[in-house]
């Protein structure tokens, strides 16, 4: 479903992230990111603070992001929006390749190199996702996943201002990704603003496309914070391949019903 959470601009708005970076780094160090078993359950020691951030994010979504995303979807035709999203996605592929290599996943690194080359050269700098037509897999990665592959534990659940749900590990990973983006050494401002703009557009497009799902979580559920947290953690673990048969909660409600 690729449910993208509504909190926008992941990895884009560098100034804001720099502000958050310091505290997240500290949190990352404090969490003692030790090697551990794949995470299960919910580890949210900073829940009261996270809930405040969540309220802020919901307010931002209600007053700005949601209406702007509707306008964006209304003004630009679907294929154009898709092109912008493709362009933005393509810009993130080099980061994925770097991390594929760090993870020792050479096959994926080759696939993504091919994807980047095909889309950049034949896909009008990435606007057309020819790689997907050629069934080259589309698997994003970042330093958060690399840390997971290296055995770093998930850490605590974190809801970041603007950026939304994460974990200490993935928040640190996201910050590292900003500084290690290979394209940032090649493409400088003001040219890089096109990329930033496209990434914002891509997020707005996601917010509009998954509007029902996101509205359902943020506005229709009894506890949007808890739902977002649960969905994020489960989906993240699934994407990292950490969901296994034995630690899935609510595995067998029949046992649950009889056993307790």
């Amino acid at each position: 479903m690729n449910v993208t959470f509504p909190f926008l601009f992941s990895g884009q708005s560098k100034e804001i992230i720099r502000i958050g970076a310091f505290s997240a780094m500290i949190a990352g160090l404090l969490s003692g990111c030790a090697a551990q078993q794949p995470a299960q359950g919910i580890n949210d020691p900073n829940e009261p603070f996270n809930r405040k951030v969540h309220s802020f994010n919901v307010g931002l979504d209600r007053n700005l992001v949601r209406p702007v995303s509707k306008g964006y979807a209304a003004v630009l035709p679907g294929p154009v929006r898709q092109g912008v999203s493709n362009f933005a996605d393509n810009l993130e592929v080099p980061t994925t390749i770097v991390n594929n290599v760090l993870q020792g996943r050479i096959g994926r690194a080759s696939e993504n190199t091919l994807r980047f080359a095909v889309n950049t050269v034949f896909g009008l700098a990435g606007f057309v996702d020819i790689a997907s037509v050629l069934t080259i897999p589309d698997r994003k990665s970042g330093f958060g996943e690399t840390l997971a592959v290296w055995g770093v534990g998930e850490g605590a659940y974190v809801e970041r201002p603007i950026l939304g749900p994460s974990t200490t590990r993935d928040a640190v990973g996201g910050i590292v990704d900003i500084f290690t983006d290979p394209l940032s050494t090649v493409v400088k401002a003001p040219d890089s603003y096109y990329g930033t703009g496209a990434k914002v557009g891509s997020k707005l497009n996601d917010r509009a496309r998954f509007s029902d799902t996101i509205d359902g979580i943020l506005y229709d559920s009894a506890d949007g914070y808890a739902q977002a947290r649960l969905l994020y953690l489960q989906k993240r673990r699934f994407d990292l391949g950490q969901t296994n048969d034995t630690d899935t909660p609510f595995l067998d409600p029949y046992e649950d019903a009889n056993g307790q």
Partner: protein
Amino acid sequence: MANNLHKPPMINRRALGAVALGGVAISLLPRAALALDVNSARALIDKAIGEVNATISSGKSETAMFRDFERIFAKYSDVPIIARSALGVASKSASAAQMAAFTKAYQGYISRKYGRRFREFIGGRIEVIDARPLKSYYEVISTAYLSGESPFELRWHVSDKSGRDQFFNIIIEGVNMLASERTEIGALLDQRRGNLDQLIADIQKI
């Protein structure tokens, strides 16, 4: 011939009796023969998906579709165990009457809740690709192809512990429906300070 004219009622009765007995035998036999396995679990989900698809493409009104979804949900899923799991610990202190009322209300609630999202499935399809035993039940793995989306994975957990083959959980790319429902119902109950009767009354309006 003339004789027969007087006899039919009796023959009919006998025939009926035989049919009835046969029916009982048939309904008893499958308990052993049709015990849940990979194929029957897979067939169940195939059938359920088929009925959902038929409803979505029927062009009925939304209200009529909700009724269909509720019927399908009640037929193919184990609503009592889903409701009990959604209610979580509160189900242990609930009376039998409260559980019955909650289960009934919850069935309508969940049918409306998920039924409202049916538009996303118009023009899409779900294909069962695999099934396997998992612990004491079966997992049917399917792929959903929705228009304009990358295909995603949908897993169905099927058990026969209710006495019938029924699914009791759906996992969408790692996101567990039972877990999500327990969070939601738990929050609704908290908002009502644990008042289950109030929750039962309210979810019929959601």
